[in-house]
Structure formats: structure tokens, C-alpha cells
């Protein structure tokens, strides 16, 4: 069926990408580590932020892969390798998490035995919020992600060679098992790494909020990579605008979903006005933080919404590139808003420290490298997938 002139040919990504990746990684790490000399506490939180940023993209991408299998989606098959490559950060998380696990005491208030002993509520929570169990949960979550990453990717890569349809079936089954586990692990991560920074505060929707943000970020990363690769001709030549449209539409949907969840959380706490809940938002309202809080609505919702609203915009490569980068920045601001008030609530103001984004720069470099090395070893298009033909012929 497929015409010969339109067959995918594997190409290596340019070496400049590798060089750029190493450069960003080195500069970022240097800046980040230098931050420790000035304000170790703050630098640690910056590292935490970068870690969660990587985690949300990696795990979000893994979820997108599983979603494609379970929903039987065809349009996304030609670009499935992109989220697979991004998800390859999942096993690396186990190394990245070590500095944080060593510093649990400096990050979490609940790890201080004396404070917990003097606080009735924290004592009540200590069966859940204690260092041993915390480390156990973290390792469990990363273990689950890594395991499923290996399984998905192994089957997917094997299929490039064998073209065995059974592998698709296997991955569908794996996805069905993975998605409930994913829901649990991502909720645990959200509660552990972000909600418990303020150990008295609680919100049942928090896991969903983190999930929404992660998927938005993962989609933005996938879209950005897809558009760039397509421009440079690394993807299948039969890829068309309608694939991009679907990505844009999905991004649009999840932007709305994020806003919906964020609004629900804020609205219910604001309306009921219970002091044990509102103080979390009040803490994000003092000083300059009110601008961050209000700005988040515009940056994370209104601007992407307005840009992606029209139908042609969802296929426009330039707009998609712009908005994907924008959304990734918005994700950083969202995480900053979630995490950072813990460090400066006392100072009540965002200090723009030069070193603040060091680890994030390193994270970007890391993603480039991961992409480069993955693309070197593996096809950028799942050539053996039985859905590929249909996916390429996808029309709205």
C-alpha cells in the first residue's frame, strides 16, 4: 500500500543538539550548585522544583503513551516515539531523587521530630508523614513508572523489527494495569512532594491538580518536539497538519481541564472560608505573591486559551511552537507557586536570584540529551506498529 517515496528513513539528530544539551546541562548544574553557596535552603528547593518539573513531563508522557494504547488512538501512533523518549527520564528519576531523599530534614517540616511531638495534628499524621514511609512511597512510585516504561518501550521497540500485532495487544493490557497505578502514584507524589511541604494543609483535589498540570506540560513538550522534528524532516513525511491539530486540540482541552480543577480548588476553599484551608492561599497572596497568583491565571489559562481557541491556530506550527514553550514556562511558574512560598513566606516577596533557574536549565539540557541518545539508537517513528498506516492517513 505505502508508496516507496513516502517511507520513513531513520536519520540521526544533529550533533549540535548534543553539544547544546551538554552546554545547558553544564551551565545549569554550575549555576544550581553555585546557588548552594549563597542560600543552601533555597537552592535545595530550586532543585526540588526542577525535579518535579522533570517528573511531571516524564510521567505525563508515559501516561500519554498508555492513553494512546488504551483509547486505541491512531492519529498519535506516528508520533508515539516522542512521548516514549520523553518518558525515558522515568528510570533516571531514581538517581535524581537521591539528593532530595538525603535532605528530607531540610525540606519537610514534618520530618522534625520535636515539632511533630509538640503538634497534635502533625502527630496524628505521623503514621503517613514519616521519613521511612516517605522514602518507601517515593521509591515505589518511581519503581512503578520505571517498570512500565521499560515494558512499554521494550514491546514498542521489538515491534519495529517483528511487526508482531500481539505486542500491541500486550501493551494495551499493560496500559489498563498502568493507568490505575498511575493515578495512585501521581497522587502520592503530589501529596508527598508538594502538599506536605505545608503539612497542616489538605485538599482532596490536589492529586488531580498535579495530574492536570503534568499532562499539560507533557503535551507541551511532546508538541514542541513534534513540531521541531517535523520541520526538520525527522518524522514520517506523510505526517500532516491534522496530526498537529489533534495535538493542539488536546493541549487546548487539558489547559481548560487544568483551569477547571484549579478554579474548583480555589473556589471551594474561598467560599467555605475555613481558616485551616484558606491560609494556604493567603500565604500565596502576601507581597509580590499576589501578582504571581493572579498572573498564573493569565499565563497558565487565558493566554494559551486565547491563542489556541481558533481552529487554524491549532495547526499553525509557529503558534504551536510558541504556545508549547509558553506552557512549559507556565508550568514552571505553577510549580514555583506551589513550592517556593515555603522558602520565602517569611520574606514575603519573590527574590529574583540569578541562580534560581539553574537546575531548570540543566533539566532542559537533560531532555535534549535524552532525546539525542534515544534517537540515535531507535527509530523516531514506530515503523512496526500495525496502526501506523491508519495513523498516517488520519483525516479529521
Amino acid at each position, binding site marked *: 500500500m505505502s508508496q516507496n517515496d513516502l517511507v520513513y528513513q531513520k536519520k540521526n539528530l544533529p550533533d549540535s543538539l548534543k553539544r547544546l544539551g551538554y552546554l545547558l546541562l553544564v551551565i545549569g548544574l554550575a549555576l544550581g550548585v553555585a546557588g548552594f553557596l549563597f542560600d543552601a535552603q533555597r537552592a535545595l528547593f530550586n532543585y526540588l522544583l526542577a525535579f518535579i518539573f522533570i517528573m511531571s513531563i516524564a510521567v505525563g508522557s508515559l501516561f500519554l503513551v498508555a492513553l494512546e494504547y488504551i483509547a486505541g488512538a491512531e492519529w498519535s501512533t506516528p508520533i508515539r516515539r516522542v512521548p516514549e523518549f520523553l518518558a525515558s527520564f522515568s528510570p533516571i528519576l531514581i538517581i535524581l531523587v537521591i539528593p532530595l531523599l538525603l535532605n528530607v530534614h531540610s525540606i519537610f517540616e514534618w520530618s522534625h521530630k520535636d515539632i511533630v511531638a509538640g503538634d497534635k495534628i502533625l502527630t496524628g499524621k505521623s503514621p503517613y508523614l514519616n521519613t521511612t514511609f516517605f522514602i518507601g512511597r517515593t521509591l515505589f512510585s518511581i519503581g512503578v513508572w520505571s517498570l512500565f516504561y521499560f515494558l512499554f518501550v521494550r514491546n514498542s521497540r521489538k515491534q519495529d523489527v517483528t511487526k508482531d500485532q500481539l505486542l500491541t495487544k500486550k501493551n494495551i493490557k499493560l496500559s489498563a494495569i498502568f493507568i490505575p497505578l498511575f493515578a495512585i502514584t501521581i497522587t502520592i507524589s503530589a501529596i508527598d512532594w508538594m502538599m506536605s511541604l505545608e503539612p497542616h494543609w489538605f485538599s482532596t483535589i490536589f492529586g488531580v491538580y498535579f495530574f492536570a498540570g503534568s499532562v499539560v506540560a507533557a503535551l507541551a513538550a511532546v508538541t514542541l518536539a513534534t513540531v521541531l522534528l517535523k520541520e526538520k524532516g525527522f518524522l514520517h513525511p506523510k505526517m500532516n497538519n491534522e496530526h498537529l491539530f489533534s495535538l493542539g486540540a488536546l493541549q487546548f482541552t487539558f489547559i481548560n481541564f487544568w483551569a477547571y480543577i484549579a*478554579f474548583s480548588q480555589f*473556589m471551594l476553599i474561598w*467560599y467555605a472560608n475555613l481558616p485551616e484551608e484558606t491560609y494556604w492561599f493567603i500565604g500565596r497572596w502576601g507581597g509580590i505573591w499576589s501578582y504571581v497568583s493572579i498572573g498564573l491565571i493569565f499565563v497558565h489559562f487565558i493566554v494559551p486559551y486565547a491563542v489556541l481557541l481558533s481552529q487554524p491556530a491549532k495547526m499553525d506550527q509557529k503558534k504551536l511552537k510558541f504556545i508549547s514553550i509558553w506552557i512549559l514556562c507556565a508550568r514552571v511558574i505553577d510549580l514555583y507557586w506551589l513550592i517556593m512560598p515555603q522558602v520565602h513566606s517569611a520574606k514575603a516577596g519573590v527574590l529574583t536570584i540569578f541562580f534560581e533557574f539553574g537546575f531548570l536549565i540543566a533539566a532542559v539540557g537533560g531532555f535534549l540529551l535524552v532525546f539525542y541518545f534515544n534517537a540515535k539508537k531507535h527509530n523516531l517513528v514506530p515503523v512496526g506498529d500495525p496502526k501506523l498506516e491508519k495513523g498516517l492517513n488520519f483525516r479529521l
Partner: protein
Amino acid sequence: MSERKLFGITVLFHTPDEIIHAASKVREAGYKNYDVHTPYPLHGMDAAMNLKPSKLGYITLAFGLFGAAFALLFMYWAMSIDYPMIIGGKPFFALPAFIPITFEVTVLLATLATVISMLAFFFKFPFNSHPLHDTPYMKAVSSDKYGICIEADDVLFDLEKVKALYKELNGQNITEIYSSVVEPFKIFEPKFLTLLTLVALLTSGATYITLNKLLYITPFDWLMNQSRVNVQSKSTFYADGFGMRKPVEGSVARNFIPYEYMGLIAPVVPLSNTLIPSNDILSLGKKRFLTFCSPCHGNYGDGDSRLNNQFPNPPSLHSEKVRGWQDGNIYHVIVNGQNVMPSYASQLSRDERWAVIHYIRVLQKAKNASPSEIIEAKKEILSNVAK
């Protein structure tokens, strides 16, 4: 029959591929007033007919934005300006709480505007008298055939050429469609008049029954029949048959504490003023004085009545006697009246009487101050200004 006008020529095709091909050929031949009829939307027909993308989205957007703005501004006006009320400790302009309704109104207006403008302006519906209706052609294209109709008012229209084009495209059932003669609608047709009369009767009857009968049956009669004794009505409960009861001996109505020296020439022990003079009290006193006292006593209490001798002028309030009175004495005169002056008890409440007395004292002071007192007062004003 001669009045029947040619509307257009139709042709049928059996497969989607044929119709797409035919439509693009018809377009290429330069026809403008033609239409393709298919039982369902065909992919690729927009391109074959070279149609511009639908502009419907702009209407949706405009009405959506209008709905959002309208709902938000309206709630702002109603809750913050027209009738501000504190509810649940929220601000008057409680933006998060306005979001749900703003959203709903946006969606409602946008969808209704989209559908109504599509049907009324884009399609010009309802249009049941179109010449294509009730033709075998329409029956075929609404079921499983695909048809083209080139209309007679196209500039390029030529009966033979069109037929030739159709034949060339291998079309079936080439038919000429004539528009039927439209009879002008007659208002005075008996059938129509009967219908109008019936509708009028039905509407007025229903209105009458609703407003005069339906709303008076249980349970809608809740305003008329309430299980309580109405004022001034009989009651079988009490032996004397009266519905209303006399208050207990010695009951005093709220704010109507009786004045104990009523009817006496002077109070035995004059009451003392219950109010402390302040700006509010003095301006109240001034207002009441100017309303009730000044017609006879004059604006400054000089006894220069505005009534032009229709009524005997009262003495001045600046006399030694009045200035020497205690507040209670003036109060007594207000409540009780004096000589020709009637009681003002019903015009002025207790507090207002005392406020008026304060104001009279101010007038008295102003009219009768000694030069040294005036100098003192001026100094005080200057020092206040300096501050």
C-alpha cells in the same frame, strides 16, 4: 400553466465519487447558482464546490463575549450597586462566585445565537415552499442519491448546455423543475378569520380562568385564606365576639412614654435633657425647628412670624424669661402647648424635642453673646483653623 417559471435543472448520481467529480466540473464550467444535494455531508465537497469556510464561528464568538460581559456586568450592578448586601462575608463584587453564572450565560447566548442565525440568516428557514420540495428529486437525494441542481437565474444558464453537461457527466434522471405559482395570502379569508377568532377566544378564556379562578383554589389561595384572626374581624374564640384584644391596663406603647405633667401650667420638677449636643443632634434640631417652630417663632426665634398676622405672633425666644428657663420648661411647652400654641407631641418625637431644645439654646447663645464672648469664640475658631 404559462405562469410557471423554470427554477432549474436537476440531475442524480449514484456514488459519492461521481458527485464530487460532477460538482467540480459544474464549478469549472463557471456556474455560480447551483447547489449539490446529498443525504449527508460529503467530505471533500467544500473543496469541489470551492466554498469559503463558514463564518458561523464569528457569530458564536461575538455572542459568547457579549454573554460573558453582560452577565458579569449585570451581576456587578445588581449585587454591588443596585442592592448591595453582605452575603456570607463575601465582597459585593464576589468574582469567583459570579463565574458559574457568567459561564452559563455565555454558553446559552452563544449556542442560541449560532443556531438561530444559522437557521434564519444562513439558511433562510423556514422555507417549505421551495420549488425543489415535493419533487422525486428531493425524495431521492434525502434517501440515497446525490444530485446537482443548476438554477435558471444563473447568468450562464442555458437549457441545452446544462443538459449536455449533465449527459457528459453521465448523470441520471435529468429533470426540469418549475416553481409553482404562489397565490397571494388573503387576510379576509373566512378560514383565517375563524382561526384568529378562535385563538382570541382561547387566549382570553385561559387568561380569565387563570387569573380569576385557578389562582383562587387551594393551594394557590395562600394569600387570601390564612389561619389567623384578621384585624377588626369577629372571633368565635372569645366570649365577647371580638377578634382584637384590649391591651393590659397600664400598657405603654414603644417609644410612647407618657408625659407626667400633661395639662399642668408648669412642670413640678422640670425634666433634664437626655441628649448630649453634637453635630448630628444640632442639625436634627435645626431641621425640626425650621419645619415645625419657625413658621410662628421665626427662623431665629425672634417671634417674627411668616404668617402675616393671620395668627397672633408669639413672644421672642430670646426674652430673659425663656433664656432663664430650664430645658424641662421648654420641653413642657412643646409637649403641652401654651396659650394659643397647641401641643407638638404628635409632630416631634421625644428625642427630636430635646434636639430642638438644644438648637434653641444655640440660637439664644448666638443672639445674646457679649462682645468678650464673641472674641473668645473667634479665637477658638482661628485656632481650630490653624490646626
